[in-house]
């Protein structure tokens, strides 16, 4: 272990506080807002003077459609993640292990797609989706999300696959495994940290999207939570919906937190140690 001097410790401490402050203040602020009563919402104090959970019960009232939106969000993000991982792991494996014509083209294409500004395709997509009947459906959102989550996952996963000694795969082949068996029973278990990393990234990308969800949905059938939030109105047209929006925002972050906490435990580094050499 490295020993730090007193000055270094102080500097590290200050740095940590600054970063934590910067990252957490907006979150705490939203949390605080969500706990304020409608009357005190504009009182400009950081901590609520009157604590209430009213905003949370308001969010889940039937009329707002937020319950349905949460289900849409979870469903769409999960399906996107699972599909992205399934396709990306196979694609990344092929890209790292095989030499085939057009390999660089695929990688470059994947990169180009992920660089493409979403706003430039969303208008055209709106028209196409209405014609083919994907407008306001789950697949209508899953498809565009996949097109962004896939390149991201392929890149992440190929970095992890590259770390796995090729000898392991040869050994599996010698042990009588088919290509698919070697992949599923030897390579994939070792690449699990990468799979979880890619999974979290894909899930967050799909979960956070506002643009596609806003343009390509119109009803509760497929509207996701971030968009539903923007549709919040107060109890009457004179009530400020800020409290409810804040509560909704807090609710929306919870699944992400759970996802990260679950998967973080699985991202164990050094899983391949012991495979090779003495």
């Amino acid at each position: 272990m490295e020993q730090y001097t007193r000055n270094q410790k102080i500097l590290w401490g200050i740095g940590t506080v600054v970063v934590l402050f910067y990252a957490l203040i907006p979150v705490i602020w939203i949390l605080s807002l969500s706990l304020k009563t409608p009357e005190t919402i504009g009182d400009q104090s950081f901590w609520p003077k009157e604590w209430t959970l009213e905003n949370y019960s308001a969010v889940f009232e039937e009329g707002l459609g937020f319950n349905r939106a949460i289900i849409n969000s979870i469903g769409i993000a999960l399906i996107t993640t699972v599909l992205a991982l399934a396709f990306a792991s196979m694609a990344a494996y092929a890209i790292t292990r095989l030499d085939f014509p057009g390999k660089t083209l695929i990688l470059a294409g994947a990169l180009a797609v992920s660089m493409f500004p979403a706003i430039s395709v969303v208008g055209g997509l709106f028209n196409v989706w209405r014609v083919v009947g994907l407008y306001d459906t789950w697949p209508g959102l899953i498809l565009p999300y996949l097109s962004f989550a896939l390149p991201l996952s392929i890149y992440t996963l190929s970095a992890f696959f590259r770390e796995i000694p090729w000898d392991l795969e040869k050994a599996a082949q010698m042990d009588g495994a088919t290509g698919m068996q070697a992949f599923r029973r030897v390579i994939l278990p070792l690449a699990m940290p990468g799979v979880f990393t890619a999974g979290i990234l894909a899930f967050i990308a799909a979960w956070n999207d506002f643009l596609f969800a806003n343009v390509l949905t119109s009803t509760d059938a497929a509207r996701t939570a971030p968009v539903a939030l923007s549709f919040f109105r107060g109890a009457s047209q004179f009530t400020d919906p800020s409290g409810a929006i804040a509560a909704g925002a807090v609710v929306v972050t919870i699944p992400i937190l759970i996802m990260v906490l679950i998967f973080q435990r699985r991202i164990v580094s050094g899983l391949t140690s012991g495979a090779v050499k003495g």
Partner: protein
Amino acid sequence: MADIVLDRVTKTYSDGYTAVKDLNLEIADGEFMILVGPSGCGKSTALNMIAGLEDISSGELRIGGEVVNKKAPRDRDIAMVFQSYALYPHMTVRDNIAFALKLAKRPQSEIDSKVNEAADILDLQNHLDRKPANLSGGQRQRVAMGRAIVRNPKAFLMDEPLSNLDAKLRVQMRAEVARIQHRLNTTTVYVTHDQTEAMTLGDRVAIMLHGVLQQVASPMELYNNPKNLFVAGFIGSPGMNFLPATIDNGVAKLPMVDIKLPQDVAERIGRVDAGKNLVAGIRPEDFEDARHVGVDQRERGTTFKTKFDLVEAMGAEYYVHFPAGDSTVESAQVDDLLADAGGVAELSDQGAVVVARLDAESRVKVGEETEVWVDATKLHFFDADTGEALSSR
């Protein structure tokens, strides 16, 4: 179990580089064959082709009489031990060893008994439920062996399996590998760059250089009758001494001494044109301190006087280094040997250096003039241009 036949097997990569040229090798059923050579000589490529991990560009590979050129590795029924061991890190030792049997969908009772049997042979009983990361180098090596033997395959392929072990463990495992191979009597192809491993393990040794097979023979045959300079220099440690020489009228002129060739040597090398550039090869142990040579032995050779540059006491023997005159041997094959040894030739102030192995009793000293005897019956002669051994055959 089966024999393995390589019939004019060639490997050319897509960039035009030929790693293995026209390799002909017949490995008998149950034989322990060593492929040895400096790095880049094509020995690992040859092994990978037998394994099926690399395609064969031309030629035929037969295992047990069946052409397997186009067969996938899993259909060849051979097991391989990798230099890196390539253990599956997420599986226990038991699962590592059982993996092939599980893939083959064998009944659980059979898997258990075979794994236990392999663990018994390899002394792994107490480690079956550990992960490879928690094992020592020697234990990992044994797990890799276990993975191979549990399947009872037609052949074992081993790619420098001991090179990651420390020196002491390597000697120990070397004996163990030999014992296991002997016990199971499975055809084995073993790749190494270490001539000691090659000599001690193999029934026969195949020496390769630049993708070309140089000589296949038993270790003693290679040692006593090397076909060319490369084989002569590669086998044996310290290596054979090479000196420029000519033969005139039955007398070999070496830089430090002229030696009258005995009848059987003259017959062995056949007729040689006077003045033809030759290379004489003398193994270190074919020198001796003249005082320690018996009378009956003495007439087999010649003596000369020299001063030693360096004396290395090894306990059981002395290695002495002395200069052999200004002229050095120039030959492509000697350069290859040098490259393998690290590219540095040992030179004294007076040119090339000869290493001799003397009796422990001789108590020689640096700088003292000593009479050295050389056994003329053990001389080797090579054509300086081609590197081939002179032979009347």
